[in-house]
């Protein structure tokens, strides 16, 4: 694994599996009375959030603290130009404070990759979500959530090696909504296909890239690309799905002229109460925050949650463990994962 985490494609199946297996151990840490290990003591993790975020920032911050790392928080206006300072100047200032890793979120695609080129040796860059490009830790947490939903963890002694390999083989996962503008969709596609799942992308043509088939074929390679289908009809594919992965539909897409109206979108692509009844055994994921009444009906949320088929809360819980695994893998000192001795 390289010194950075920019996209899941760079990790490959092996790298993704390794991180998901490692996540098991941090899930176990999270269940301890004192969920804290000294693995990253003395290390500093900076969160460089050029775009507002609550969940991702909290998840990374919690993960870093549970690993005993020091955390530097940095927030900035989304446009560097507006500040009159270049992106590079901003990053180099933070880097000069002596950091070991930086979690970067930016509204523009590619910023973590650019910052990785400017980073000193020994400083790891983690992509915390860049534009429409990638959100690798979200992809990992979604893949982990689904793997552990279909293959529950066998409780063993703390710290024992887990035998089972992460897999989603044979599972059929629908990703529904605004795919073209979604970094979550791109990272989920990379993670799910790496673990052997089949995917159906469900969206109106205006919320998909212009040549979706060409995009998938060039991106994923022939083997994985064969397992990705594209559909504009949610009802047509709904009955066959093991997972419905909903994406957030932003209201400004209507202003952009990409959809006719919100009610029209809900009627065709929303997880309405009626559609929820056709789900069968399928589970539902959402990267949050959910637009109640748009991509998912309000009463559907309560209904699915009561049946334990809405995995949103579990996604958040596992999100911390996944980020602990990533930080540990990138900048870990190799210390064993024993409980914090309090020193």
């Amino acid at each position, binding site marked *: 694994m390289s010194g950075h985490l920019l996209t899941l494609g760079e990790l490959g199946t092996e790298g993704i599996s390794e991180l998901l297996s490692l996540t098991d151990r941090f899930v176990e840490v999270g269940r301890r009375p004192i969920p804290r290990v000294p693995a990253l003591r003395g290390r500093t993790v900076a969160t460089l959030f050029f775009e507002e975020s609550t969940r991702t920032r909290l998840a990374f911050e919690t993960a870093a603290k549970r690993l005993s790392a020091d955390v530097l928080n940095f927030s900035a206006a989304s*446009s*560097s*130009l507006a500040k009159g300072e*270049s*992106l*590079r*100047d901003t990053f180099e200032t933070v880097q000069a404070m002596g950091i070991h890793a930086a979690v970067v979120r*930016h*509204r*523009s*695609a*590619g*910023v973590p*990759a*650019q910052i990785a080129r*400017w980073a000193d040796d020994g400083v790891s860059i983690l992509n915390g979500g*860049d*534009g*429409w*490009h*990638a959100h690798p830790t979200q992809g990992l947490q979604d893949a982990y959530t689904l793997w552990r939903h279909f293959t529950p963890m066998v409780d063993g002694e703390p710290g024992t090696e887990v035998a089972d390999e992460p897999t989603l083989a044979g599972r059929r996962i629908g990703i529904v909504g605004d795919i*073209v503008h979604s*970094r979550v969709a*791109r990272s989920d596609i990379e993670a799910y296909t790496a673990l052997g799942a089949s995917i159906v992308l469900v969206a109106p043509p205006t919320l998909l*890239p*212009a*040549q*979706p088939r*060409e*995009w998938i*074929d*060039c*991106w994923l390679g022939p083997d994985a690309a064969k397992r990705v289908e594209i559909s504009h009809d949610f009802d047509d594919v709904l009955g066959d799905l093991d997972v419905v992965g909903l994406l957030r539909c932003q209201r400004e897409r209507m202003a952009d002229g990409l959809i006719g109206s919100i009610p029209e979108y809900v009627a065709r692509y929303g997880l309405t109460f009626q559609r929820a009844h056709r789900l069968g055994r399928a589970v539902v994921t959402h990267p949050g925050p959910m637009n109640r009444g748009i991509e998912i009906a309000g009463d559907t949320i309560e209904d699915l949650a009561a049946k334990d088929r809405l995995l949103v809360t579990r996604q958040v819980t596992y999100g911390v463990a996944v980020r602990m695994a990533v930080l540990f893998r990138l900048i870990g000192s190799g210390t064993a994962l024993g409980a914090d001795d309090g020193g």
Partner: protein
Amino acid sequence: MAEVETQPGGPPGQPMLVIVGGEVVERGRRRHADIAVIDGRIVRVDPPGRGPLAQVIERERGALATISHTGSEAAPGAAHAWVDTIYDLGPELGEGAASGEPLLSAVELVDATRCVVASGFVDLCARVAEPLALDGHMMQVTAMAAAMGGYTALVAQPDTDPPLDRLGQLAEMRHLAATAPSCHVVAAATVTAARAGTHLAPMAQLADAGVRWFTDADPQADWGLLCRALQYASPLGATVAVRPSGAALGMAAPMHEGAVSARMGVAGEPADAECAAVAAAISAARRTGGRLHLDRISAAGSVELVRTAKADGLDVSASVTAEHLLFVDADAAGFDTLLRAEPPYRTAADRTALVAGVNDRAIDAVVSAHTPLPPHDKDLPFDEAPPGFASLETCAAIVLGHPDIELDAALDALSWRPAELAGVTHLGGGPIEPGRPANLVVIDLDRPWTQLDRGRKSFARVSPHHRRPMRAQVTDTIIEGSRSVRSSYPEMPDDLAGDRESNRFHGRWSWFAQESRP
């Protein structure tokens, strides 16, 4: 260079520059010849080893050998001996010959052995400096970079702040250009006042003052206004240049729309949007009969539309940047802001069509689209970073070294055709014959180099080509008979600063202002 004694009390002699041993390439004509230049003009073009020029060269080489052999000044007798033969050089020198005064103060040989000698390159699209910023140094550096790239003339884009849309700013631009003698800087003016795209700039006044090229350096969204501009410019003998872009259709984006942009999560500009803009502009030219230039096309479909328009007899021309003959969209997949271009780099099929267009002359010119930027402007997110970079030094080298572009096609696109389009064949791209202004370039087609090799002599700080191995190299650029580039190295700006005060220099500019009137 051997100095010749001038007679006490006599008039000062002229220096003579002789380009020796090169292959002179003009449109449809190639020959080996030596070229003599006196007072900024070509005075003789002789076959090698024949005629009086051969004797001058031989004697000059002998004089140099004397210096090298003895380690002292050349013997006065040796220098006087060859001056006598100069009397036969041409009729324009007859008067001095009759009075028996020395005609030459010095002879400078430019060794062009195994090199191509061509008329200087002309760039139809370069950004130089802001007319009211009074940034003379920037203009000098740009002109020097242009000379390093073999250019003897460039058309400065008017998309400055404020835009060049009136006579006062034209005078300002020419004043600035006069501080930069390394390359002729020809002003273009905007089509619409303040580049606002609403009403026409005083095109007739500007044309009277010598402006031949009008462009808003922007997509022209208003088709009716483009028609009026073409109609208005037609009797002025001026060209209206538009940049056909998806932006005219509300489809501007930092990348080409395709699999690569979809994977990067970056908005894409469809190639078809450019084609639609090209088709709209061509239909305006068809309706008005005006002279239209399509600045920087990038899609295969656009090349085909231009080819058809030319076959239909329309006065339409088109250009492409050198980088579009080199890069494809996948090259920018790593979010390298140096590869953020306008228009965006497209697919391999588009690149192939552009190269074919240069070869079959569907595309008239290769432009640099030189954009001087401070390095920190590229240290921004990919979609916020301004497109472009400093490309004057490398543009011609890319085209001349391109494996799929023939030499004639390359010189047509860099020199001859853009000079005709801009109406500046006296500043570059013109015939190489006695009496013509000496704006020439010497090119070694097989002398590998990189920008890094040039170190601080290179003016391009922001460029994706720093480490790119180039094959063709401009070794000498001669502007108005003076070398602005000598053996691939620039004559330093300090020297230029002194030069700009000279009579020769000011004379050149007043002459140019007269010549460029339609």
